């Protein structure tokens, strides 16, 4: 927010508080149907309930496990496939159409298929999260390696570097930089995969709770969950941003 007027955050917070107060007042005046739009205090109470009896923890754990598992797996496989495709033309020839197709369609359509294949447990959520992340990372790495600065490659060669030195000193750091600059998107994708997967069929997770809230017409719970997911993702974004800033401090 460089260049923003001073204390703009204070005005933003104030505006938010005013909005919440109006919302609350309208709710208490009976102007809003709590079935559709519960008041902030009702949402707060629902949120408090989730934590006070501790029943939220297994769900948070399930979603985090699925998202982070899918993220790790997706990055690993995406990098391996991306590097292989960039180095071996035959692999690129075979992989690129598949990846392009997977990139073009909304990959969440695979969610029901994964449930059939892998059951309603954690595996199907990890799979969905994985496929969302892997395709993104594949293209990041694949196009990235083809755009590596030739001059850097030639510099390392003329300094006496072999193929391995190129991989270690040029390609790997380049790949790391591209992944880091896409890390926030990947994190978003990973959580999308986990949540949608849970939404489709699950016994645990924030997505499952959302679908439960929907089927029981519990709008307060739904708002509480949406708020919770926002906070969680913002937190992860913050961590990813810090990591990116530190590891890309040279740029």
């Amino acid at each position: 927010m460089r260049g923003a007027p001073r204390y703009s955050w204070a005005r933003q917070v104030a505006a938010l508080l005013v909005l919440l107060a109006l919302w609350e007042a309208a709710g208490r005046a009976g102007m809003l149907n709590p079935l559709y739009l519960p008041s902030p205090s009702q949402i707060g109470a629902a949120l408090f309930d989730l934590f006070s009896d501790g029943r939220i923890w297994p769900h948070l754990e399930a979603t985090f496990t699925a998202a982070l598992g899918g993220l790790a797996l997706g990055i690993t496989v995406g990098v391996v496939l991306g590097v292989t495709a960039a180095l071996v033309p035959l692999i690129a020839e075979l992989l690129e159409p598949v990846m392009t197709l997977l990139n073009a369609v909304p990959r969440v359509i695979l969610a029901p298929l994964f449930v059939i294949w892998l059951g309603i447990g954690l595996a199907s959520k990890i799979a969905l999260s994985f496929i969302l992340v892997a395709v993104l990372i594949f293209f990041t790495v694949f196009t990235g390696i083809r755009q590596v600065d030739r001059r850097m490659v030639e510099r390392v060669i003329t300094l006496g570097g072999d193929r391995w030195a190129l991989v270690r000193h040029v390609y790997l750091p380049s790949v790391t930089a591209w992944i880091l600059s896409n890390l926030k998107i990947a994190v978003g994708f990973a959580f999308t995969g986990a949540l949608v997967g849970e939404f489709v069929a699950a016994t645990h997770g924030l997505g499952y709770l959302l679908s439960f809230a929907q089927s029981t017409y519990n709008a307060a719970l739904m708002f509480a969950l949406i708020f919770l997911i926002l906070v969680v993702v913002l937190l992860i974004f913050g961590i990813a941003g810090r990591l990116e800033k530190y590891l890309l401090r040279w740029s």
Partner: protein
Amino acid sequence: MLHVRDLTISYGGEPVLEGASLAVEDGRFVSLVGPSGSGKSSLLRAVIGLQRPLSGAVETGLPRSQVGILFQDDALLPWKTARDNVALGLILNGADGRTARADAEAWLARLDLAGFGDRFPGHLSGGQRKRVALAQVLALRPKLILMDEPFASLDAIVRARVVKDLVALVEREQISVLLVTHDLEEALSLSDEIYLLSQGPRGRITQHYMVPIPRPRDPVRSRMHPAFAPLYEKIWADLSRAVDPRVEAA
């Protein structure tokens, strides 16, 4: 030290360079001057092994690590500090990390960059980056350095300083240099010998001059040597004809 014989280079179509022969003897500073597109850079790339020639031979009698090259655009690794960039060449040639970094620090200091070892290239000025690239090459203790207009991107004052330091180092360490440039003044002020290359495609070496200015040299002062102006005029006339054969020498 370096012998290039009858070198022809092509990127598929008409050769950019044809039948080029030249020699750089021990401790000599040799320039190859020619217009843009005459195949100067291609010749250097062939010497260092980045470009396979269509025909001809390159002999250096030196191990690869003793031939350094400086490009116009320095290509330091942006994710490595100045120190690690300099150390990289040493490590790639078998030095252990600790020794390499200590050696790198010493070379940075020698090139006026003491205290800048921890900086990343993105946080250095153009002149500083050029010095790091120079340190990277010099740290390998080359016997021969190839230069492809390495100072073109620097402003005049920074350029004069870097060039002066370079000349002093090259003279002290008895390093042979092959510089390609289109800057005749720079070539004359630095070199012992100059080869002239005609306009490409099919660029050819057309002339070979000796520069009778004694060493050690100050690159700026050598421009005031009595031999400078007449030779400059002669080469300039030849160069003009090399660019456009219709131009008559004045």
